[in-house]
């Protein structure tokens, strides 16, 4: 059957996230972006909603089952509040969700209870590399098996909270395959940059470069254990999360622009009453609605194990990146000169909107 409405449980979760997004994340977003600082209390409050906890089984310290569909609903709503704040709250998922998806039983038992059990702590992952042709399927960071250990070499970029990370899930190229390796803090050869990344957007999110210079981890730290894992489901889950986050940012821009257009007076009427403006809003809304359904379908296909799930996740993420750019650009345009002034959030939405084209790997569901 087709059906296009969240169930009661999902709706409750979406409502809870929506309240936090509107009442906590959004009011803090401007100051956080300008000061490049997210208040710790803000992150903790988002963590306490329990998105990750609710998708981790009881056996590993959580209280529920993972659902990609529920995940994308929650991510959209969270990103609607503020993208940097949303990514910060969900950073531990970057470490935990791949373990849930592909980890060995030992890894699940060892890591999940400590990640989901207590307060928000910086567990993170490193996928992106600083190269224009970065490709998650062809990483430059390498892993080689030497004397019963994996040796990691390379440099990672855009790693959230790397500075204080308890552990980093590092993705590296092992014989042409992308594989995850759990790298605990303080191991020899692991160096986190002093300087944070300075970017077009996402300035409140602490992102770092991470150098791996002959970092040695035991074979048991390879995600999935000795035999490794399939990277595709992980990448697909990152892609739908990225698409969902893009939807949230776009929705924020559309809502702000719509409200503005209904207030702003020009030529004796509200500018929203002009077709030139109204049509922009209609196109933004249509674009968002289209990509939302594609994202939902991709998530549902991942949950139900459809053969073309990963393909559709790719389409959703690709479409969402274009959608976010188009919608957030229009958002600024509707406000005209005011849109260009940092007091209004639409310029930040636009800067954040561009990131979805290259930043798959900062969120996962």
């Amino acid at each position, binding site marked *: *059957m*087709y*059906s*296009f*409405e*969240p*169930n*009661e449980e*999902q709706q409750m979760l979406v409502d809870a996230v929506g309240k936090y997004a509107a009442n906590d994340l959004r009011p803090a977003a401007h100051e956080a972006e300008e000061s490049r600082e997210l208040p710790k209390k803000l992150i903790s409050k988002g963590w306490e909603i329990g998105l990750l906890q609710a998708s981790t089984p009881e056996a590993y310290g959580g209280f529920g089952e993972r659902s990609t*569909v529920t995940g994308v*609903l929650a991510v959209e709503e969270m990103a609607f509040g503020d993208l940097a704040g949303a990514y910060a709250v969900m950073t531990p998922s970057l470490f935990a969700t791949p373990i849930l998806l592909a980890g060995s039983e030992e890894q699940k038992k060892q890591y999940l209870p400590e990640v989901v059990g207590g307060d928000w702590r910086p567990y993170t992952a490193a996928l992106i590399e600083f190269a*224009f*042709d*970065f*490709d998650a*399927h062809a990483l430059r960071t390498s892993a080689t098996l030497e004397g019963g250990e994996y040796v990691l070499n390379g440099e990672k970029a855009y790693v959230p909270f790397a500075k204080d990370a308890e552990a980093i899930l590092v993705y590296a190229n092992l014989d042409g395959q992308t594989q995850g390796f759990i790298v605990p803090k303080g191991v020899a050869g692991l160096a986190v940059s002093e300087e944070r990344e300075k970017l077009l957007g996402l300035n409140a999110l602490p992102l770092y470069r991470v150098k791996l210079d002959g970092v040695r981890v035991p074979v048991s730290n390879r995600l999935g254990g000795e035999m490794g894992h399939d990277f595709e489901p992980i990448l697909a889950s990152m892609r739908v999360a990225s698409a969902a986050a893009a939807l949230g940012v776009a929705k924020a821009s559309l809502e702000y622009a*719509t409200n503005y*257009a*209904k207030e702003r007076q020009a030529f004796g009427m509200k500018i*929203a*009453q002009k*077709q030139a403006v*109204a*049509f922009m*809003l*209609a*196109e933004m*809304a*249509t674009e968002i*609605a*289209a*990509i939302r*359904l*594609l994202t*939902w*379908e991709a998530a*549902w*296909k991942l949950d*139900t194990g459809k053969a073309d799930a*990963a*393909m*559709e996740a*790719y*389409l*959703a993420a*690709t*479409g969402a*990146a*274009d959608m976010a750019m188009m919608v957030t650009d229009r958002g600024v345009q509707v406000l005209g000169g005011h849109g260009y002034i940092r007091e209004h959030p639409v310029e930040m939405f636009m800067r954040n909107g561009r990131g979805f*084209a*290259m930043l798959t790997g900062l969120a996962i569901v």
Partner: protein
Amino acid sequence: MTIEFETPKPVVQMQTVLQTVAENMMRPASREFDENEHSIPWNYIEFMHTAMKSMGGGNGLTPREDKPKEGAEKRPPIGYQLLAAQIEMLAWGDVGFYLITPGGGLGGAAVQAAGTPEQRAKFLARFAEEKPTYAAMCMTEAGAGSDTSAIRTKAVLDESTKEWIINGEKIFVTGGDKSFNAYEQLGKGFIVVWASIDPTAGRAGMRAFVVESGTPGVKVTKLEHKMGIRASDTAAISLVDARVPFDHILGSPTVEKTTTGFKGAMATFDATRPLVAASGIGVARAALEFLKEKLAENGVQIRYGLPRNKLTSVERDVIDMEIMVRSAWLMVLKAVWMADNKKPNALESSMSKVRAGDVTTKVTQKAVEILGPLGYSREFLLEKWFRDAKITDIYEGTGQINRLVVARQILGYSGSELR
């Protein structure tokens, strides 16, 4: 409720059957009836009529009533979902042929939406009878396209005979020829004519009238020559003192000071817009599949999954087209799912039409471009689909009118607040 994308079994079965019809009856004849405009593919018409009768009939644009078996668990209604999938598949075969699939079409849909139970019984039964039968909608006039309030056709009640006397000129009547003119192969059809019963009342005075085939004073004056959808007849119809029985009016014969009657009739479009969108998407899918097939034949592989900046221009285009076609189809599914579940869908319905209009034209245009001389040649059907596609962004509300509807919905504006 839940979020689910599993295609219902009856839809899958129907798609499988219709794909065979599309491949065997439509595609091989597509070119012939495109080149010979106004000739009629009787084989297709008769086949479809027989096939649909055996499947339980229906008038083409309104779903069959679901009659659950005694004691059986009531399943969620999927009538509009079935229709949308059926239309998409037939349009994938040939959208011109799809448009002349026998049945009530837009005329029947208007009776279904605005008629009384007696009127529905009287006018709609014919579509399940022995001969294929048509009904068409006469809305547009030379001076009234999207602005239906500018309709000049008038209906005046003759108090002595209790008949309506209708005068006016209608154009762009899809299926007007087969609905009004007598063909020995066809049953007696009708046209639904929009006219004003009170020109001072604007939209509030607008009503639809069922005008039976062969009514004196009514004439098909012209069949248009079109860019595409040439298998489908588009008629101009003139009405000169056409007399119509009193009870052929759809809706109330008196004019109130509200426009609820008109709005009620316009609600027909909430149901039919996603179906028209579906027909466009069928064309777009045909073009995209053909493009991929030709590229593959020529050794061009689409490397899905690569970052955008590593893809060739052609790969990017094809991937964008996949995104467009799939997401447009999902919007149709959502809109018809809402219709099936009796949820108000004016926004989703118009959005699906906006998206389908954009996607169908862009995809077919891009496909022709990418295939170069092959795309431009009449040796293949792609150039035909390019022509067929354009109408999607025009009929049943242009892309611009539907943007207006969408904008009003999201802004909470009335027609007077956003003109």
